[in-house]
């Protein structure tokens, strides 16, 4: 709290408490101490006093102890020199202001002068319940309380429209320089009310208590916090109610005092005037008091400072958008234009920028739009998404980037394959006819990034390049980053880190199963690499991916760690005691049911086979995938059988304690071909360069006798290894 702000808040609080006291005393004189004092339709008495002090004020007389508490919170302004600490005192003054404002408004109700003309006044419990739940469960991203008036009507309208666009509930009121934003909006015929998300509370600052009342009752109603548990109520508001104040026009003592009250609730204030900023964080999640003179950026600034997570309810594109369209193909004859594949150069690239470098929602097409493209032809394309967020890390970039595939695919008439600079996109004739434009790539990505990755993405802007020279100019930067990412991942080994991640996503149907996600072994469903799990943990710290410290290495060869044993014992509901990360024969990893492949022992061949889910035929184990799957899943340790992801086959840790890749004797042709490049490399690394050719597939054998015969013919190394059983 800067000294100037603290002093103003302390003065303002003093004035408010004095006024409240005067009003209460006068009312007692006129109407007697037992006169009822209440807000309409609420079970929370004076809600602020109820939440913070546990008080149940029903009469004028009962307001006196509240005033007493408010008075005890008042402080003298900090001295000019040699001042004493003032932040605590200023925050206390803020609480005093809220308690006083509440009493003043209640007395106004008593006098029948609230609600003010065109204003909502006190928010009833009914409104609290119907709209409040949306606020605390995240459906409504936040609420803005605007105080004062914009420099002109047009700006006032623009600001509320920006909030409206983001489904942010906006409470408007107070005045500056004798003008209230309420009248500005009224003059511009902006429709106000709960339906339009623009609600006027009152033309003075004191009535700002109504939206704050609403928030604090959220803590009591939805947070289940007991009245009188002040700190918990305030913390609930900070953690769950994404509100902030936007002060338009100069701030006076009353506004500063109310602002200090709001800051106690974790609600920062953004102003459009020259004010002393308070940047160190701690009472609010981020900065406490911030200025922004540019009205084009002020809404952005509010969102950023409060950490509001924007959700775009409906993606505004002219074609339908749903997961249902993900698998839809656009065939050549249906195609209006295509990008990438083998037809032109195209790339997709997500990069992290500083918060001030990204203008959220900005979408720019550099080069020809779709209408300027010739039907049926291929064009260059570069989609660059700049994201910024306080919690954004470079490690998350590939995760976001990979999601572009499904995000774009879910638009009807859009086909997407591949990734990075190997992507291939088609737009259908029908989509083009409906008005689908290149810029809509940006619209989709902006909305989905916010929606899916709101915890890390605070801002996203998309630039779409459709000119060849631009694409060729920027692509090398992207390629360089792709390579860096690959190196980083490739260089990552189980030994190079001290923490694995769990995945218990599937415990809903396999209650005792836990995946231990390691750099060299992804989750068995293939969807979660170690980096993904790490990112998921950062996004959702209480979610299914929890960090597991390896701690003491108990058996380096078989992959046994104390930390993992402890963890697995706990999370498998005590059904498992030990875990060997690198063996299928001793304490192997359990399986849920989502595995991409199954590894199964073939005792006659002294080795193992890998079979993927897509392979429908018989295997040398005498069973089809589907039959095998029945005996592998369910969260049990079944030595000799294990569910894995496809890529595990080419991991250096592939059954490394049991002989490694040299034990691999059979796999379906499709899988072998899909992995061929890397698998061959791994064979070389294992010192058996021709091993690749020695691994049999269904074209060679589908039952064990024939398999053993061909292995013997080819001299497969598994036959010379120590017996498995």
């Amino acid at each position: 709290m800067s000294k100037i702000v603290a002093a103003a808040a302390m003065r303002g609080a003093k004035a408010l408490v004095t006024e409240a006291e005067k009003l209460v005393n006068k009312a007692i004189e006129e109407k007697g101490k037992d006169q009822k004092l209440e807000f309409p339709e609420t079970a929370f008495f004076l809600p602020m006093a109820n939440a913070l002090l546990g008080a149940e004020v029903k009469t004028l007389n009962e307001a006196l102890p509240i005033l007493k508490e408010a008075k005890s919170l008042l402080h003298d302004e900090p001295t000019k020199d040699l001042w004493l600490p003032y932040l605590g005192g200023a925050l206390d003054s803020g609480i005093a202001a809220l308690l006083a404002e509440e009493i003043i408004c209640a007395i106004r109700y008593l006098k029948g002068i609230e609600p003010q003309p065109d204003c909502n006044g006190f928010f009833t419990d009914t409104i609290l319940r119907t709209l409040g739940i949306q606020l605390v469960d995240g459906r409504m991203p936040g609420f803005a309380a605007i105080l004062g008036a914009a420099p002109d009507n047009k700006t006032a309208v623009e600001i509320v429209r920006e909030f409206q666009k983001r489904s942010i509930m906006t409470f408007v009121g107070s005045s500056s320089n004798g003008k209230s934003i309420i009248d500005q909006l009224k003059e511009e015929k902006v429709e106000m009310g709960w339906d339009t998300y623009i609600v006027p509370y009152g033309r003075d600052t004191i009535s700002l208590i109504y939206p704050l009342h609403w928030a604090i009752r959220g803590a009591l109603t939805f947070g289940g916090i007991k009245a009188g548990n002040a700190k918990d109520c305030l913390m609930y508001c900070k953690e769950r109610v994404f509100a902030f104040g936007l002060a338009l026009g100069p701030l006076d003592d009353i506004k500063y005092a109310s602002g200090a009250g709001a800051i106690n609730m974790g609600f920062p204030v953004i102003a459009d005037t020259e004010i002393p900023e308070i940047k160190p964080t701690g009472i609010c999640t981020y900065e406490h008091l911030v200025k922004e003179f540019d009205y084009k950026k002020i809404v952005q600034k509010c969102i950023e400072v409060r950490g509001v997570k924007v959700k775009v309810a409906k993606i505004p594109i002219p074609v339908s958008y749903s997961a249902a369209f993900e698998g839809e193909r656009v065939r050549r004859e249906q195609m209006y234009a295509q990008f990438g594949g083998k037809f032109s150069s195209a790339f997709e690239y997500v990069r992290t920028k500083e918060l001030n470098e990204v203008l959220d929602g900005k979408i720019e097409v550099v080069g020809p739009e779709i209408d300027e493209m010739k039907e049926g032809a291929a064009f260059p394309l570069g989609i660059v998404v700049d994201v910024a967020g306080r919690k954004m890390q470079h490690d998350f970039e590939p995760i976001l980037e990979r999601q572009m595939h499904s995000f774009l695919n879910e638009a009807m008439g859009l086909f997407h394959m591949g990734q990075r600079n190997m992507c291939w996109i088609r737009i259908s004739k029908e989509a083009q006819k409906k008005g689908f434009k290149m810029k809509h790539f940006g619209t989709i990505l902006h909305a989905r990034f916010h929606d899916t990755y709101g915890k890390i993405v605070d801002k996203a802007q998309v630039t779409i390049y459709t000119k060849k020279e631009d694409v060729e100019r920027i692509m090398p930067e992207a390629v360089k980053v792709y390579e860096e990412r690959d190196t980083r991942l490739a260089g990552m080994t189980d030994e190079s880190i001290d923490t694995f991640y769990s995945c218990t996503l599937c415990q809903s149907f396999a209650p005792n199963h836990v995946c231990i996600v390691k750099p060299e072994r992804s989750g068995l469903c293939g969807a979660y690499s170690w980096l993904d799990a790490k990112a998921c943990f950062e996004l959702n710290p209480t979610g299914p991916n929890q960090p597991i410290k390896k701690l003491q290495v108990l058996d380096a060869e078989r992959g046994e760690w104390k930390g993992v044993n402890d963890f697995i014992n706990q999370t498998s509901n005590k059904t498992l005691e030990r875990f060997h990360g690198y063996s299928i024969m001793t304490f192997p990893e359990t399986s849920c049911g989502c595995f991409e492949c199954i590894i199964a022992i073939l005792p006659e061949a002294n080795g193992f086979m890998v079979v993927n889910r897509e392979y429908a035929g018989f295997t040398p184990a005498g069973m089809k995938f589907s039959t095998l799957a029945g005996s592998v899943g369910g969260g049990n340790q079944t030595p000799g059988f294990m569910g894995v992801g496809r890529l595990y086959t080419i991991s250096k840790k592939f059954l490394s304690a049991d002989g490694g890749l040299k034990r691999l004797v059979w796999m379906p042709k499709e899988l072998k071909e899909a992995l061929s490049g890397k698998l061959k490399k791994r064979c070389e690394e294992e010192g058996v360069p021709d091993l690749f050719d020695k691994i049999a597939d269904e074209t060679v054998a589908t039952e064990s006798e024939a398999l053993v015969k061909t292995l013997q013919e080819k001299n497969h190394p598994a036959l010379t290894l120590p017996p498995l059983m």
Partner: protein
Amino acid sequence: MAKEKISAEKLHEICYSCGIETIWQRYDAQDPHCGFGTLGLCCKNCNLGPCRIDPFGEGPQVGTCGANADTISARNLARHAAAGSACHSDHGREIARTLLLFGQGKAPSYAIKSEEKLKKVAGEYGIKIEGRKNEEIAVDLGNAMLADFGKQNEAPVFFKRAPKKQQKIWKNLKIVPQGIDRPIVEMMSRTNIGVDADYKNIMLGTMKTSLADGWAGSMIATEASDILFGAPQAIRSQVNLGVLKDDEVNIIIHGHVPLLSDVIVTATRDEEMLKLAKSKGAKGITIAGICCTANEILMRRGVPVAGSFLQQELAIATGAVEAMVVDLQCILPGLTTVASYFHTKLISTHPKAKFPGMEHIEFEEEKALEVAKEIVTKAIENYPKRDKKKVNIPKEKMELIAGFTAENIFYYLGGKYRGTYRPLNDAIISGRIRGVAGVVGCDNPKIQSSKAHMQMVKELIKHDVLVVQTGCSALACAREGLLVPEAAGKFAGKGIQEVCEAVGIPPVLHLGSCVDNSRILIACTNMVKEGGIGEGIDELPVAGAAPEWMSEKAIAIGWYFVASGALVVFGNEFPVSGSKNMMKYVTEDVEKVTGGKWAFEKDPIKGAHIIIKHIDKKRKALKLGDVMYKSETTKAK
């Protein structure tokens, strides 16, 4: 018109030219200091000796009993730590005893000034609070605290306060002290002839003894004092010899235990006393402190501070002090020499600390106010004897803010309803604040510049390290104007400036006397609990320093911080440098044991950078980003 005032430096010169011997002359006369003592290679623990080890490797490498340099220096250091721990803990015992006496109705001069703290601490001790009078709780708490001193088989209660991680480390090392007195006795026993000879084992014992000081003896002193004399709040006052008044009775209280000094402050505000003073021609009574007693009454009552340890003789040399009242610790026997040139009455008050040449008026808790009034009366009656010609009060005085504690930080950072350490932890995480350093300890004529505290602290805050202080170190920096809120804008880095501006605090926070180093332990624990910067004190980006240490108490303090996981930088080496193994152990190996370690650096700027480097290392281990704002390094001299 009053005559123009001299500077403190001038006062120093006056002493010198008049032949008044002070600590600086006596220090010079000792030069060169005993080399064996400096290196820690002299053993006189038995009558086989005294023995000494030849540091050049030519003469004997073991004593008569066969103890080598490692064993001898370790034993010497261990005994220093035990003595320091004893000193603090004995202080704590006296306050706890007074709390008990108050509860029993035997010490009517006292009161429960912090009911909140009485109840909180009693709660920690498992004492029933509900429906009971303060006096009843005080009896139980006094007894329970005293019982902590004599425990044989369990740790003192406050050990529960430490972070879980530290508790576990101590348990594994078997250095959780059983009681407070027992480890001190044990240390005297194990350093006897023919007992513990393994320097590493002796150091573990040293840590156990010192932990009993920090997490129990000193902590009891702090907590019981807060209960009896009030929990400090931020408070304004003044420091330096210029606080003494030309036309008032000046009384100086010097020493450590606030039991008498607090009551003397009360006595000087008594109408009857003021009337007496006026009748003797004085305009009033000024009371000012020296050393840690000064800090105790500064923190709680805003009483101005005349000076730190090194200034005690100079205070008398002002010729304006009617009485200097002392209790114990850091009181120079040389005071009587200086006083013999002036009218100043020296009054000793503690049965455990008498000084030849001082008048002794024994202090008893049962009649504290009576004794205090007797002393104040003597001072007033001495006023007419003041020789105006000999009066030389220096002009220097400086404003300061004191009164910060581990508890009130919650309020200053979040107010009544949102009290929290979050803004501090956030500031560290975001890099506005690089880390926190405790710069504490004595002042020492050995450090020629006598400005080591100030130089180190300025360098630290310039690099966005928030500084907390206690003891004479705090007073040294206060004299230089570092403890005022305006100092942030003048001396601190941009990050600290932003935080100080937001909270309204100075960049250097005064946490009290030397027993109040226990407040720093609690503040660190609160930081751990707030979360985000480590699971234990050893992970926090913090460090400690005593650039001009001299007392054995400093060794105990340093060790309890090292044992709690902190880096501690001393200006001068403690006497173990004759043993390579011991030096390696204390500066390197111990880090693998507790997470803390020692460093020695005479140059305060370089010392500051050892701290900065250490904090940066801890930040890196916590995966915190760089500091928000860059700062330039001051060239080391």
